[in-house]
């Protein structure tokens, strides 16, 4: 290369250079072999004018745990929150691309399509007939900070179910017990179901949130750093719970704890500055990372 005439914009991008947003490297992906419950394709996301996700692909295999890792600000939480459309709450945040739930594109539900039609006047846009509220019952979410509702433990778990269906007391009792058992909380609370959810310890509250999330039998359960506010013992209990839940549910978990991702997940995606860098089966990603950036992150060179 001619040194004198090299413009700055085409300076070679070294593996550890931070100027990644301008690069067009394709993610290194090993797609799961099993059935995909949820899949994001070429997903962009922006807060107002600031774009935070760039063409992200995320395949989520049924009955597996998929982990998203990466340094702070890489967009893993943003990606998670784009999957169940919780960002709808905040005007000025929008996603483009495709998110397929069992093949149906959930980004084009009735409400958002109506808005797009109104804005662009395009009458050919098709909506999938999905109603956002019903959608959210199929994709559950557990947040970083335990958020028990100000009501009894029983009512907490029953809350989501009651939104969508009418159940008799007997039927609801069964659902509540089953959900609490699956969340490994039943033994600790079975005698005080009418006590307030706020009276539980941090770890118990988080498992209550898990029970609440799975009571509606979602197709996918999303967890955003669920153990970061918990002590090590509660964390271990939560991880064991998730490994058990995997039999019945599909789980996506965002975590900044690399050991946790290595312990419990089947697939792991490493993200950096809003892009999916590498997505591989967990053992392969940690033992033989193919991207230099991934290698630097999982060996602790930066984070």
């Amino acid at each position, binding site marked *: 290369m001619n040194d004198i005439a090299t413009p700055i914009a085409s300076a070679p991008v070294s593996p550890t250079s931070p100027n990644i947003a301008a690069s067009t490297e394709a993610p290194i992906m090993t797609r799961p072999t099993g059935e995909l419950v949820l899949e994001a394709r070429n997903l962009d996301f922006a807060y107002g004018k600031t774009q935070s996700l760039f063409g992200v692909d995320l395949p989520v295999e049924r*009955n597996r745990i998929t982990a998203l890792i990466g340094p702070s600000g890489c967009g893993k939480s943003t990606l998670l929150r784009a999957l169940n459309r919780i960002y709808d709450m905040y005007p000025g945040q929008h996603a483009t691309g495709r998110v397929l739930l069992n093949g149906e594109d959930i980004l084009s539900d009735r409400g958002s399509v109506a808005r797009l039609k109104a804005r662009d006047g395009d009458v050919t846009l098709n909506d999938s007939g999905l109603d956002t509220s019903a959608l959210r*019952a199929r994709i559950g979410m557990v947040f970083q900070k335990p958020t028990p509702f100000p009501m009894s433990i029983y009512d907490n778990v029953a809350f989501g179910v*009651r*939104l969508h*269906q009418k159940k008799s007391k007997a039927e609801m009792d069964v659902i509540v017990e089953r959900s609490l058992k699956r969340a490994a909380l039943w033994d600790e609370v079975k005698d005080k179901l009418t006590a307030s959810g706020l009276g539980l310890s941090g770890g118990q509250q988080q498992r209550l949130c898990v029970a609440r999330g799975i009571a509606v*039998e979602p197709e996918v359960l999303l967890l955003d750093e669920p153990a970061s506010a918990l002590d090590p013992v509660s964390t271990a209990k939560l991880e064991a719970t998730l490994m058990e839940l995997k039999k019945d549910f599909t789980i996506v978990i965002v975590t900044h704890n690399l050991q946790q991702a290595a312990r419990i997940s089947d697939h792991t995606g490493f993200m950096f500055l809003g892009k999916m860098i590498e997505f591989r089966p967990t053992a392969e990603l940690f033992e033989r990372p193919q991207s230099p950036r991934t290698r630097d992150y999982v060996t602790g060179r930066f984070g």
Partner: protein
Amino acid sequence: MSTAAIDIEPKAKPARAQSAASETIFRALCFSAATLLMAALAGVVVSLIIGGWPAFHKFGLGFITSTAWNPVTEDYGAAGPIVGTIVTSILALIIALPLALGVSVFLVEFCPKRIARPIAIAVELLAGIPSIVYGMWGLFVLAPWFATHIQLPIMMDFDSNSLIGRIFSGVPNGANIFTASLILAIMILPYMAAVFRELLLTVPSQVREAAYGLGSTSFEVVAKVMLPYVGKGTVGVIMLGLGRALGETMAVTFIIGNSHGFPHSLFDSGSTIASTIANEFAEATSDMHTSALIALGLVLFVLTFAVLAVARALLAGNKN
């Protein structure tokens, strides 16, 4: 995957609890309530303008400067009540401000933590006492005491033509501009102390500790570091207190003597806008009388609005 407890068909109707209709209705209800608030305030302003218009139309702007008040000849002027309002409020402020500053500084800087809480609560209790109770106390306790122990001695010791004699002349019944200001001061004191205390608490502890660490005395920390830090907020507190005092009715009505003219001395009886309306409205003798009273109300509203708008602007800068 086990049998789903919930059958969610993509096109199923959502449960009643969160149907689109109930969402819209609830939001509309909340919005209506907020708008109702605006409408109420607008209503107050409009009704004051409409009601006071006849008086302003008849007297023009001279209404504000005239000291007449004669229901028989239908000649009304707002100067007496306006002057009374402003004088009592400013006097109350002069008395209350140093006290409020002192109380709040004491509570924040010097008071041992254990008794600071009870004292702060006691000061808040003072703020909660209804104005009519202040009024009664003023009329039956403060006024006679003032007449006996302050007014009479002054009148007896000083020649009524001397400067002091003239400033303090008046019927020695304790019902005058000065005692009304005193009562007002006690009323706005706890309020100003509370707001000022909160302002002082916004000073970051590092700043205070740095000042003390340099060897400053408490006085210097307060005067040279904390007060400047709080800055505009102090003026905001002053304006808030002023706004409160301007609108106070019952406490003043009992003890101001309720005469319409221009007060000639501190110990002369007078009137405020609020006390005049309170005393005369129910038995106003004619439409013009009523209109004059409402016009007074409009003047009071403009005054309080202006003061409060300034106070708010000054205090907004200090909200953390």
